[in-house]
């Protein structure tokens, strides 16, 4: 008993001590990063994003350059530091993390998933804190607006797929469209009246909605059979990879797909990641459409991708991050650092506040050249949180993700 009591006291002391540990803050440090969701459904995306942010920040600290293709320099006397915590995709936890990071002097934030976005968006606006976001539902668009995306919102992505599909529609009847989407806030962000209105406007017949678990534990045979029975031509959804892979696999087995006996195209917005999908599924995944996705990591002709590749080679050659959201991390870091740099142009280091960074930083980002990682250069402003103006559409063909089109952003929310 004596031993256990000693153990308890020791444990308590360690806990208290760790609580008090100050994160060593040197003179003139600015923080980037924010909350991460390293556990939960978005863990794999989040881990890659974190790696991207860390590499980019290291690059800026070492070279004081913003990117190889840019002339602007980051102020030499200021060091950047990545500060992050794992929120486990729990809103309440994200809240206390946000408080902690804010108290540490962080001037930018980040949103790691839809639950976090929903919980923090009002608070961010209240604090006039600008944030980058990995989640991109239409819920971000309704004011207040201080969360900035670097790929189109999901509704715009799906609208782009609808545009693209309609362009190649040959039959005289109206094409039939249905939602086949994840059953969480992200997946359901499609179901807004504006989306339906747009589909009606461009000449679709809307059939209905079917839900697939965020990560499927059984093939969605039922849902797909239903789609088949209703004669659906195009299924739209917001779905992450662990949801879409079994779905497409089951489609093939049921003989559904653009290259199958029953012709149906399945298109999802970005979190379905065409490149990741193609790699995992191979030819089995042929016909899968994904809008808003980034270029594959091996597309070294693109300066931005080359930059990513160089950084990975330089900083962790043996532990290459192969997930495409590494590019997302680069973009998030670029946006955050750019906002800080722009704000520093207008106010001295000591005068920086979240509000200053939001108004003099984020709002002033115009045509930020991302080396073509994002489909267009990023532009933000008051009321414009969607950074890109065009949406890239990829399709899996012969086991490879191929760019099949580019559609304009319609601003559906």
């Amino acid at each position, binding site marked *: 008993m004596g031993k256990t009591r000693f153990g308890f006291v020791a444990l308590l002391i360690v806990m208290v001590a760790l609580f008090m540990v100050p994160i060593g803050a040197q003179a003139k440090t600015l923080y980037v990063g924010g909350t991460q969701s390293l556990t939960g459904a978005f863990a794999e995306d989040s881990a890659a994003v974190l790696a991207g942010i860390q590499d980019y920040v290291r690059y800026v600290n070492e070279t004081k350059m913003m990117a190889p293709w840019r002339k602007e320099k980051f102020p030499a006397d200021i060091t950047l530091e990545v500060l992050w915590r794992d929120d486990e995709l729990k809103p309440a936890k994200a809240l206390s993390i946000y408080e902690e990071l804010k108290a540490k002097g962080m001037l930018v934030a980040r949103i790691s998933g839809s639950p976090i976005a929903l919980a923090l968006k009002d608070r961010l606006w209240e604090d006039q804190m600008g944030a980058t976001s990995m989640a991109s539902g239409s819920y971000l668009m309704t004011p207040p607006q201080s969360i900035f995306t670097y790929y189109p919102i999901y509704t715009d992505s799906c609208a782009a797929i609808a545009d693209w599909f309609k362009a190649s529609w040959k039959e005289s009847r109206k094409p039939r469209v249905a939602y086949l989407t994840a059953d969480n806030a992200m997946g359901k962000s499609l179901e807004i009246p504006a989306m339906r209105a747009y589909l009606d406007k461009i000449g679709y017949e809307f059939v209905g909605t079917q839900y697939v*678990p965020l*990560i499927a534990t059984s093939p969605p045979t039922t849902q797909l059979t239903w789609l088949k029975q209703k004669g659906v031509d195009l299924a739209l959804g917001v779905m992450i990879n662990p949801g879409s*892979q079994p779905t497409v696999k*089951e489609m093939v087995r049921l003989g559904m797909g653009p290259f199958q006996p029953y012709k149906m195209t399945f298109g999802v917005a970005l979190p379905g990641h065409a490149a990741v999908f193609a790699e*995992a599924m191979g030819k089995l995944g042929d016909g899968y459409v994904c809008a808003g996705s980034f270029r594959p990591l091996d597309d070294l002709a693109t300066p931005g991708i080359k930059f990513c590749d160089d950084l990975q080679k330089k900083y962790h050659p043996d532990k290459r991050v192969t997930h495409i959201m590494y590019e997302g991390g680069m973009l998030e870091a670029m946006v955050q650092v750019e906002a800080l740099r722009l704000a520093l142009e207008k106010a001295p280091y000591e005068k920086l506040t979240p509000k200053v960074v939001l108004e003099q930083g984020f709002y002033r980002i115009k045509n930020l050249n991302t080396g073509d990682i994002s489909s267009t250069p990023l532009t933000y402003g008051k009321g414009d949180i969607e950074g890109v103006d065009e949406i890239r559409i990829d399709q899996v063909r012969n086991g490879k993700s191929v760019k099949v089109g580019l559609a304009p952003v319609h601003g559906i929310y």
Partner: protein
Amino acid sequence: MTFFIQLVVTGFAQGMVYALIAIGFVIILKCSEVFNIAQGHFVMIGGYLGYTFLVPLGLPVWASLLAAVVVAVFMGLVIERFTLRPLIGQPVLAVIMMTIALATVLSGLATLIWGAEYKAYHGLLPTIILKVGSISIPSESLIGLIVSVICVTLLMLLFRYTKIGLAMRATAEDLQVVQSLGIKATTVYAVSWIIACIVGVIGGILLGGISGANMVLADIGLKAFAVVLLGGVNSIGGAIFAGIILGMLENVAAGYLDPLLPGGGLAQVFPFIVMIIVLIFKPHGLFGLATIERI
């Protein structure tokens, strides 16, 4: 009609896998009265193991299954020895808490070994479409069905006709009596955890073949709980029956009712609704033994 039959067939196959996972749960519950929250996590680990043996190591299917079973045996032993054994004689709730902690550790371990990434292995089972008329039967589900039936039969025989089976049933009734007769309760517990791990891991490989290995695979455990309770906690036959019934109901409900509802997702809660209704009328599940209550 075709639509309906399709739903029933899919549900049947799906339900069989639920049943398989549920059995692991029943065995532990029977032997040691432990409500094992971590059962779903065994499934998750199984999914990852399947991936490891099939993809990076490139073993054939049978060898992968075998290797996974070996790992499961080891896992069961370790879990019993280091987490459950120290708690013998302690309140049941402490043991339940232990399984919660175990679940946490297993998910952490999985993240550590396999990372956060979603691991797909689609080559495990042939993607053939078996067609009967216009009804298509997923071959994976069929194989799942066969494997489940084999496992379940073996377990039934084990319980009914072997010495260790008798010891397991006796331990389930009264730990002290069994100990006073010289039966090593720890061995019985170890065997039950090993069986639970094996069953979970096999279930995990089957499910992993369908949807890939991922942390969320652990959530299947919840459905298995519903199956167990619907069937009656101490009835293996009940678990099978309930698994199939729930699988079917879930699919039929999703097929017909989901499109009518604004938010969908009925398939996820329907088993629970059915379970509650059944429990109100049959408090010990469909096939559970009523406890002999005396005063």
